[in-house]
């Protein structure tokens, strides 16, 4: 597993379409459209992607969106703050499930 992730995979990612060109095209067209300037700027979308990349803990996405955020004009402070949004939601989501625990424990306890 020590070579499970390879840097070259990122550059070769478009080749994934070879197994299913039609679905591949649909995916990459959609993907490109998602990240274009819209109601959110491309930079804002890249920061969201960076936060999500850390949540799904995808090494490819982390590398790709660190570079993309820099290229879109985000600085290190903005990128770190974006990560903390992911961290807060991950931590908060664990903690808020404590309400289940709390309810369950209250019901069975005296």
């Amino acid at each position: 597993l020590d070579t499970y992730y390879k840097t070259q995979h990122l550059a070769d990612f478009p080749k994934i379409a070879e197994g299913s060109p039609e679905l591949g095209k649909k995916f990459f067209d959609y993907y490109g459209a998602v990240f274009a300037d819209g109601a959110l700027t491309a930079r804002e979308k890249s920061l969201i992607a960076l936060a999500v990349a850390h949540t799904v803990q995808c090494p490819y996405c982390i590398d790709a969106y660190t570079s993309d955020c820099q290229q879109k004009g985000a600085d290190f402070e903005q990128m770190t703050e974006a990560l903390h949004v992911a961290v807060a939601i991950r931590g908060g989501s664990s903690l808020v499930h404590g309400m289940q625990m709390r309810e369950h424990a209250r019901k069975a306890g005296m």
Partner: protein
Amino acid sequence: VRAASPQLAQVSADLAADRATPRATLTLRRREAPLASTARQLEMLAAVPLQKAGRRVEFDAMAGTFAPAHLEIFQVNLGKLCNMTCRHCHVDAGPDRTDAMMADAVVERVIAAIGRTRAHTVDLTGGAPELHPRFRDVVAAGVTAGKHVMDRCNLTVLLLPRNAGLADWFAERGVEVVASLPHYRRPNTDAQRGDGVFDRSVKALRLLNDAGYGKGDPRKRLTLVSNPAGAFLGAAQATAEREWKEALQRQHGVRFDRLFVLNNMPISRFLEWLEASGNLDAYMERLVNAFNPGAVEGLMCRNTLSVGWDGRLYDCDFNQMLDLEIDLPRGPHIGDFDEDAWHRRRIVTARHCFGCTAGAGSSCGGQTA
């Protein structure tokens, strides 16, 4: 440091005494670094293993032939003296560069050429051009000749006591201020230019706003120029301009008219940084992979004449910094400039040119594609 004139000696003494301007590094020349040699820079670029499909990649082969367009921009580099020493500087400018400042005899020839040229714009750069003792004479020559005059300004230079009132002097003459600011927030700006530069830049922007700049008046146009603070390409210009305007207004109450986004050229101090940080090969590969055929038509070398501090001529300021002289039969000096021959010349290129064709393209006038 020896200076050519008493006025220049005074500028040099002022800069030596200036404790207010932050400095990020020292010039290559002052450090006697190997890359102070332009031959060494060209060797380093040539040695980058750029390959595509097993073949060596060169700029000419990828860009194809492109001819000169009409001469529009008469760009003059008044010299390498600067109050700052930014990490990415392609000029190797700094407070010690009195060795490379335009002499009076050359200034006179430049002024005469400004009176003759069909170019509509006179673009003044450096170093910090405002530090040249004859700077105001050259601006005035452009204004008198009916040219649009642009001053490439590093912002902090406006805060030096010797330049008090310069913003108002510009405003009275309709000079466009093209001011470099790497980023609209502090961290990347200070990383590239030195701690404290961002705050001083904002102060200078306020001064320009107070003089009427940055508020939509075409005679008081304030253009900002952004360079990436690292081994990546510039952001999309139109989107970045909206974000910068909103953020600078909201956070600092300052306004500007338009934003140019540039790529960093792999030469001089930026080349040194790329090599030292282990980014050189990857950056060159990034430029080549981002090669945009649509950016070739808008290349600034097609419509720009670049005059060096010693009067020599070049196709652009980057070629100037690499000593890649213009290919003209009567000799590459402003005193012999033949504008008709200029239109027939072959443009001189090398691998650094990939910086101008990467992504959305890059020129002294911002993105080109």
